[in-house]
């Protein structure tokens, strides 16, 4: 049984999808969290291929790049999709979600209060509704984006909406199939356990 060690900041951020995938796959791993202010002194002595975290160490070997790590863990958890085409579809939906997620993150990280308010309005009115309408179309009646079982694209969508609904609480109202996706993810036993136990962080 390989040993997995995930190292990231003490936030959900770019690591949470990975943690959710470990949880859904019921794969034990070490969840190492580094505080922001400790990183400058730790960085030069940390085993990071590209000077960044998150990193994943598996039996002594290390990779970085959060999405490469996520794809690897999704593979181990059997959540990539069954065929090459299914995997491509899941991958496509995740990447599409990340395009929107990027805009959301820019809004959240905006330091100027009035610019942030403007970005928040713009995201909520211009970017979020068409994205949700599009993805409601992609989702199956069974509450899965790909095929008839959970894949990492369901989990990725859940994770992203977890962040987004914190700022836009009613965003998913009326989207039957998307709500089913969310329910399917939340009721996965490993995910349910993780959601109850995970540290509460601002980001």
């Amino acid at each position, binding site marked *: 049984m390989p040993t997995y060690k995930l190292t990231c900041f003490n936030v959900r951020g770019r690591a949470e999808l990975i943690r959710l995938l470990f949880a859904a796959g019921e794969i034990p791993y070490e969840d190492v969290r580094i505080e922001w202010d400790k990183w400058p002194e730790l960085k030069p002595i940390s085993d990071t291929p590209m000077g960044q975290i998150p990193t994943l160490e598996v039996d002594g070997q290390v990779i970085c790049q959060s999405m490469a790590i996520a794809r690897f863990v999704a593979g181990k958890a059997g959540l990539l999709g069954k065929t090459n085409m299914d995997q491509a579809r899941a*991958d496509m939906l995740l990447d599409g979600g990340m395009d929107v997620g990027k805009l959301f993150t820019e809004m959240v990280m905006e330091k100027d209060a009035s610019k942030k308010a403007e970005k928040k309005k713009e995201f909520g009115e211009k970017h979020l509704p068409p994205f949700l309408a599009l993805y409601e179309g992609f989702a199956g009646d069974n509450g899965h984006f790909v095929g008839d079982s959970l894949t990492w694209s369901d989990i990725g969508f859940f994770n992203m909406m977890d962040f987004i609904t914190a700022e836009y609480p009613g965003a998913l109202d009326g989207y039957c199939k998307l709500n089913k996706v969310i329910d399917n993810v939340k009721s996965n036993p490993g995910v349910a356990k993780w959601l109850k136990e995970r540290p509460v962080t601002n980001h």
Partner: protein
Amino acid sequence: MAPKYKLTYFNARGRAELTRLMFVAAGVEYEDVRLEREEWRPLKETSPMGQLPMLEVDGQVMCQSGAIFRYAAKETGLSGSAGWEEAQVDMFVCGIEDLQTKLWEVRFERDEAKKEEKKTGLATFVPNWLANYEKLCGPDGHLVGAKLTYADLAFFNGMHDILKERADTLEKFPKLAKVVESVNENKAVAAYIAERPETFI
């Protein structure tokens, strides 16, 4: 019966070139559709996410360049051995995408002052990035493992514009130079490069 692949993009390297290079390197037949902007407009509404590139496989259509090239990598056998090697290849390509994004940010910046600022940033970023990749690169002319993967093609592709500007960029990075050499040694890729349209991006 081999699947029918149809790749649709603008007449540019941009976000489609890595996929084209994979099909070419692996000798897999595909239709390389290049659209002018006016041809794209009517198609945009019926596309999955209103964006290019798109890949059609036996009638099914997908988009998102990363999903497309990762799919193509599996179909062409260029993704590396399943499991850890595949993850390492993935990691390298993600890092090359980071570089590509920075390069494009500069190329597309219209404000002259911001462009100069970004160019200055690149002048530090690129050598550090290359030095890091040189450290991580395998010794045999491949970023990972002992044979061609799409990481080598992505690196070759990512370096194209940089090398065009400064042919000696990889002088201090012999392992990376070897990667570019191995890609050039693929006869199909060399023939494709010689014939492909010259484009801004």
